[in-house]
Every structure is written in C-alpha cells, then in structure tokens.
C-alpha cells in the first residue's frame, strides 16, 4: 500500500541525524497519527483510517521535500534564528536588518539566541538560551556557585548538558541545591544540569539587559556549522596585553581579505559586498551609537541648568534689595553680622531644599514617564532588563538625583555669595 511505504520512509528518515528533517517528519507524523486516531474514534478500522488519513494529506514525500526547501530558505534568511547562539551582537545585525525589512514587514529576530521549551516542572516554561564554545566562559572568567562550567567532553554533538543562570535556578528550581545531575527536557531533548552560575557574574548579554536563562555547549563540528553561508555566530575576544582595538581590527581586516579570496561567493554580506569582520569594544556594543547624542543632550541640559541657576540668582538678588530696609532695621536693633547671615542663609536653604525636593519628585516622575514611553534605542534605559529590572532604572534615577542636588548646591552657593556680597 502506498501509505505504508510512506510510513516506512518516514521512519527511516527519523533515524537520520538531520535535525531539520526530523522536525518536518515529526510534524507530518503528528498530523497523520492524530488524524488516524480521531478517524478510529469515529469508528473506522485502523487500516481504513490510515488509508483515509493518507489520502486526505496528499503526497507525503513531495510535501516533505517542499518543507525541507522552505525551511532551508527560512534558515538562511533568519540566521539559524531558532537554533543558535550568540555572545556579542556584532555589526552583522545592521546589514541583516536592512535586508529583511526590505523584504517583509515581519519582525526580524537577529538575536540567534535559542528559545528552549523547558519541560519537567509543573508546567512547561519558555527559556532563552545561548550556545557557547568552550572558550567563552574562560574568557569571561565565569564562576559557578554549584557544579562546574563546560568541559571539553561536553562539546560533542547536540547539547547533552546545560548550565543554569542564577535567576533561572532561583525562579524555576527554587534554589534547589541538589539540582546538579538532574535531567530536564529542553526543546524536546533530555539535558543534564551540570552547573548554576554565580549571581555576581553577568554575561555581556546580561549587561545589555537580555540575561540568558540557560547556557548550552556549542559543538562547532556539527554539520550545521560546516556550511560557509551562515553568519550567525557572534564572537567575543579578549585583547592581548598591549594590543589595541585598532591593531586587532587591522589583523581582522587582513583575515577578511584572505577569506574573501578563499570564498568569494559566500563570504559576502546581503548586498553581495565582501564581508568585513568589524571589532567593537564591549562598551560600545552595549551603549551602541548612542554615546554622542547622549553627550549632546547632557550639554543641552547643563546649559539649561546654568540658565535656571542664573534666573534663581536674579530672583534672590531682587528679593535681597527689597530686604535692605529690614536688614538695616535688624542691624540697628543690635543684631550681629553672624545672626543676620544666619537668617539669610536659613531662608535660602529652605528655598533650595524645598526646590530640590520638588525637583526630585519631578525627576522620579520624569524617569518613570521616560521608562513607560521609552521609544527604544537607548541601551540599558528601557525596562527590558530581565536580570535586574530595577537596577537600570534606579541608576538613572540616581544620576538625575545627583544632577539636581548639584544644581541646588550650585544655586545655594551662588545665593550665599550674593548675600555676602550685599552685606
């Protein structure tokens, strides 16, 4: 029977190790088997149900081929998207974005982090994961509070082991100290927990407010990585002592030229231009291109602050001339210079302290408004941070706070100077 042979073909393919095809087969098989089940529930005999399900589905083999073609294309377009890893977002993000947005209005997910469905607790949970090569944790001086980091043996085929981020361990496993060695199902694969990261260690992703839930070993010898057409990995490196980004970039430029010569067809970006290997510092990777606009903004704000201070000083001065009579009277009644100064200082201190308080309230409110309406584009400023949602906010709050207190300090000083001057 035609359907039967289709079945057999499916099973044989199931044994092959191509991940992609396995998923396609599993999807088709789920469809057929569920359909057979429900047809049998409706009273059909198994044979009939099987034949009917196959007839309804249509030609299986051609569907399979079609799906493989589509998935391959998707894969190429979306980076390995669903499947793979990253450590530092390097420039390829920009070029990739341009292309995909020209093609569709669909959102492009440049982060090749791997959403994993964790199953094992009371309910399945969606986790963000990253696959890393052996060197990554060494370069970043990663510490664990339980278990170990990856060893060379762990990098062997599809990930068999996983390291949990500290917050994941706390959130999902309730800080269970006996968790090491237990198996969880990640994206359908049983995976053994071998370590829990130290909460004091923050990954570059975490610095960007996208902390990772689980870490998996990345075996670069997998067939998926042997193709030269995908540029999905992000590389993190530590500069040798004495080396600068400039010298490293020069080295990478030479390397890029060599690669361009070796693979003129595949080592190209979306526009077909020869690919470069740009190096950026971790700091600029985090702050992005936002530094100069922010400095400009800071300059503008400082200027505004100076103007405001001058205004306040003016007002106080004007008030001072009105007080000349009062002060003269107090002086004539025998008030000492110190007491008069004390009085004026108290008055002005009250003014600036209350002004400062109102300022702080407005600042806190302003930060809140900014966070709620954040149009995006400022790294570390939106409420995205998974690992420490409040830290970025409070940090911004503090900066505003200090700005304001400084300002008040300034005007306070200025005022007292003026008062002295008057006296």
């Amino acid at each position, binding site marked *: 029977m035609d359907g039967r042979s289709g079945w057999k073909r499916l099973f044989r393919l199931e044994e092959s190790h191509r991940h992609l095809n396995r998923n396609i087969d599993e999807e088709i098989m789920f*469809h057929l088997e*569920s359909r057979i089940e429900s047809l049998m529930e409706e009273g059909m005999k198994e044979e009939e149900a099987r034949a009917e399900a196959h007839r309804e589905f249509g030609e299986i083999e*051609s569907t399979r081929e079609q799906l493989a073609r*589509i998935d391959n294309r*998707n894969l190429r377009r979306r980076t390995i998207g669903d499947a793979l890893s990253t450590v530092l977002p390097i420039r390829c993000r920009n070029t990739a974005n341009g292309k995909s947005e020209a093609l569709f209005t669909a959102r492009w997910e440049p982060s090749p982090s791997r959403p994993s469905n964790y199953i094992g607790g009371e309910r399945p949970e969606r986790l963000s994961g990253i696959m890393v090569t052996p060197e990554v944790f060494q370069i970043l001086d990663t510490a664990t509070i339980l278990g170990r980091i990856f060893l060379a043996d762990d990098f062997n085929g599809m990930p068999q082991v996983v390291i949990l981020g500290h917050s994941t361990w706390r959130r999902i496993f309730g800080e269970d100290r006996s968790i090491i060695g237990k198996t969880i199902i990640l994206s359908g694969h049983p995976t053994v927990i071998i370590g829990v990261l130290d909460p004091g260690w923050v990954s570059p992703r975490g610095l960007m407010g996208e902390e990772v839930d689980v870490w998996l070993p990345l075996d670069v010898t997998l067939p998926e990585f042997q193709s030269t057409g995908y540029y999905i990995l992000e590389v993190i490196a530590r500069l040798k002592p004495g080396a600068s980004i400039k010298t490293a970039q020069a080295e990478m430029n030479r390397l890029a030229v060599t690669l361009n010569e070796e693979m003129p067809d595949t080592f190209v970006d979306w526009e077909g231009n020869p690919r470069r290997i740009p190096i950026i510092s971790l700091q600029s990777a985090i702050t992005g291109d936002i530094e100069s606009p922010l400095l400009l903004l800071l300059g503008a704000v400082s200027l505004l602050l100076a103007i405001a201070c001058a205004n306040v000083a003016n007002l106080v001065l004007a008030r001072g001339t009105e007080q000349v009579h009062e002060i003269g009277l107090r002086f004539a009644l025998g008030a000492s210079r110190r007491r008069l100064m004390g009085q004026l200082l108290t008055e002005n201190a009250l003014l600036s302290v209350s002004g400062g308080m109102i300022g702080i309230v407005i600042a806190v409110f302003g930060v809140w408004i900014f966070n709620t309406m954040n149009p995006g584009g400022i790294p570390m400023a939106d409420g995205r941070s998974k690992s420490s949602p409040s830290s970025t906010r409070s940090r911004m709050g503090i900066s505003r706070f200090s700005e304001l207190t400084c300002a008040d300090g300034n005007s306070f000083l200025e005022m007292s100077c003026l008062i002295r001057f008057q006296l």
Partner: protein
Amino acid sequence: MAGSSNNLMYGSVDLLILKTLTFGGPMHGLAIGEEIRKLSRDRLQIEGNALYPSLHRLEGKGLLKGEWRISEKGRRARFYVLTTAGQKCLRKDMKEWISHTDAVRYVLELAAGEV
C-alpha cells in the same frame, strides 16, 4: 472537498490560515485544517501537502511563529501563533482579497447575464 477548485484555493490558503489563527491561541497544523473545514461548513478541506508548506512559508516571513509544545494528547506537536506582523498582513490582504473577489464576481455575474 475542494476537488477541482484546488487551484483557485491555492492563493487563499495563507489567508485562511492567518484568519483561523485569530480565533484562538496556538494551534497545530491538524487543528488549523480542521478549523478551516468546520468554519467553511465542510466545503474547504486543505490537504496536508498544501497546508504545511504554507505554514512554513508564513513562518519564514515572520507572520506566524511556530514552536514545539506538548499537545492535548501528550505528544510533541508544532504549534503556530499569529505574530503582530501576521495580524497586520492579514488585515491588509483580507481587504485586497475581498475587493479582488468582488471584482471577479461582478465580472462573472455580468457574463452570466449575457449567457
């Protein structure tokens, strides 16, 4: 069963899938097909070899998001949900589709009148 109208249907499968997914949460391919059959009062039955390529294409375009979950019966199945881009696309395409089919019907009815 769709029968000979398969060719006509082909272009609208994407649209039917997108629309069906607006009715509920994540659905797997089989459920989507069943839902379309039910909603069309058994008149449209999309075969697996049209349904799945369409699903995968839509996912590639970012209009759907697929993920492996455990089905009601405890088996692993690929579930699809509509993305925001998918919703937008559906709204736009639905308008186009309706105005297009309206136009086609208008012409056909005129022709029928002449016959």
